[in-house]
């Protein structure tokens, strides 16, 4: 029982990081119906930005979080402006290929600059608490707390503000919304910025929780979050969070039972299974593609 509770906390920790990244995938898909394959690498750069920041000036955790989120937001906007916007009216396949290419450019540039995995320095004093025999660290509390906080802010932003309304409108019909005077391009750019900022935050949190940072993280971790977004129903925010916690639980349980090399196999098989039986994810709505 204690063991299960301990694993549940681990799953919650992994799931909340996945959720932050998955939200970025899902938001962009919701607005542009495009898979932003580069998002995983933006997440990876979030970790590296944090590393760089601490190497230059030792800053407290909260400041680092804000700076990293700002930096990745700018990066996300730049990618959107220079790689995706020129292809807005091109075939969808061109956009996917460009996204894949952008991701690999970012990943391999990072690999060229920093070929080896680097340790992440400690940002916080990690205190261990005992609750009824279950160990909880400050780090876990902060990771789960920050993630849930950011998700609540995002939910409020999308559901209650005029920006959120504009975003939902762009998602449902971009052409009409532009005619009605909503600046669609600006809304899309801000959506990318928010998604990338969440990815950057996830990068920082991941770096703190599993203190080794490498260029391959964009694929090994970032794409897992993408799997989570698809499982939940890509384009659906609550689905992304649900999918992330499901995937986090499945991965933690897999590692508890099988050797850790089976983790990828199980996660991607789960993805394939979900796509076969529920092609639009758990909470996604089926869409009719027009030619």
């Amino acid at each position, binding site marked *: 029982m204690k063991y299960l509770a301990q694993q549940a906390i681990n799953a919650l920790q992994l799931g909340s990081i996945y959720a932050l990244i998955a939200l970025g995938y899902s938001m962009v898909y919701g607005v542009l119906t495009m898979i932003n394959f580069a998002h995983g690498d933006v997440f990876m750069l979030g970790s590296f930005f944090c590393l760089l920041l601490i190497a230059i000036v030792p800053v407290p955790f909260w400041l680092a979080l804000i700076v990293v989120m700002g930096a990745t937001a700018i990066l996300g906007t730049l990618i959107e402006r220079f790689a995706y916007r020129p292809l807005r009216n091109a075939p969808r396949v*061109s956009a*996917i*290929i460009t996204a894949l*290419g952008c991701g690999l450019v970012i990943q391999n540039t990072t690999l*060229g600059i920093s070929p080896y995995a680097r340790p992440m320095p400690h940002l916080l004093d990690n205190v261990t608490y005992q609750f009824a025999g279950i160990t909880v660290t400050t780090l876990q509390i902060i990771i789960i707390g920050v993630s849930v906080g950011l998700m609540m802010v995002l939910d409020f932003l999308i559901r209650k503000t005029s920006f959120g309304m504009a975003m939902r409108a762009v998602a449902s019909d971009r052409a009409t919304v532009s005619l009605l005077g909503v600046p669609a391009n600006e809304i899309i750019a801000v959506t990318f910025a928010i998604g990338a900022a969440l990815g950057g935050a996830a990068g920082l949190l991941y770096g703190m929780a599993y203190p080794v940072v490498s260029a391959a993280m964009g694929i090994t971790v970032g794409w897992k979050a993408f799997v989570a977004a698809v499982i939940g129903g890509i384009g659906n925010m609550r689905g992304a969070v649900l999918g992330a916690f499901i995937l986090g639980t499945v991965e933690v349980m897999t590692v508890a039972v099988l050797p850790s090399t089976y983790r990828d196999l199980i996660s991607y098989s789960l993805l394939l299974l979900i796509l076969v039986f529920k092609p639009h994810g758990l909470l996604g709505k089926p869409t009719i593609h027009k030619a």
Partner: protein
Amino acid sequence: MIGMTPWTKNRYLPPVLLVVGLIVTAILPSTGLVNDYLQFVIVSIAINAILCVSLNLVNGWMGEFSVGHAGFMALGAYASAILTVKLFPSAPAALIFPAAVLIGGTVAGLAGIPVGILSFKTRGDYLAIITLAFLMIVKSGLENIPYTGGPRGMLGIPHLTTVAWAYFWCVVAFWAIRNLVYSKYGRGIAAIREDEIAAEAMGVNTRAAKLVAFVTSSFFAGVAGALFAHQLQFINPSSFDILKSTEILVMVYLGGVASLGGSLLGAGVVTILTQCLQPLGTWRMVVLPALLVLLMLFRPAGIMGYRDWNWLKPRLSLKLRSKNEDKAERGKEIVS
């Protein structure tokens, strides 16, 4: 002079050239005119051309987006290597190698069936996700099989891919895919690219066409994988990752989508480019994806997109041709 055709259109030219090519490639290594490195590059171009033309069938002619080509290649490579290294290590090369390549292709082709079936209902982004999941499952599956060395891979594969064999399989792949895309099925595949619903309404059996496209494409990916394994003599799961798929994608979209000549061109240019960029080390892997992005921004169909060299197209049947020429002749009479 109706019957006069330029010598390049002579119907016996292609088979003659192919046979001459086979003889030349068979005796080339023993003449000492080309060194080992040049042979390596030539074989690489041939293997990449097979990969490129087979991916082009799905991504170009059918207009879908598959990123799982490296996964099919991995299956072919491993299946053939198991045959030559584990099962029949002492069999004569001339006997075992064609069988190994064929079995590699067949294993990959069989793996193409489920992916093809999944493509019946999903397309576009979701099909890309399925092929991505397939690639990841193959890669991490191979990492967990101790029989083939797990993540360390397989060593000591005999060097059996000669220039002649690579040339032979390259010709077979181009010949098969050319005949497929210019056949009734091929027209159906192209119709799926233009508009799947309309194609179905016009009587194209889209399911059969998709299945044929996926199985053919993965079969030749497996063949290329088998040749690749017996060229490098060493394979491990991480040689077949997403970067390998990207490399093939660059070839397809650089050379030209839905084009045989484009596939040849793309494979040649990218292979030679990667050889020239060898001194750059890790940075080499930045150049290819960046090239892909620039291509998409400025020339999305590639150099020879939707076009082909005439000598690669099959000739019209004699009956059709004489009809067309009659028409042309009559047209001239009217003008004069």
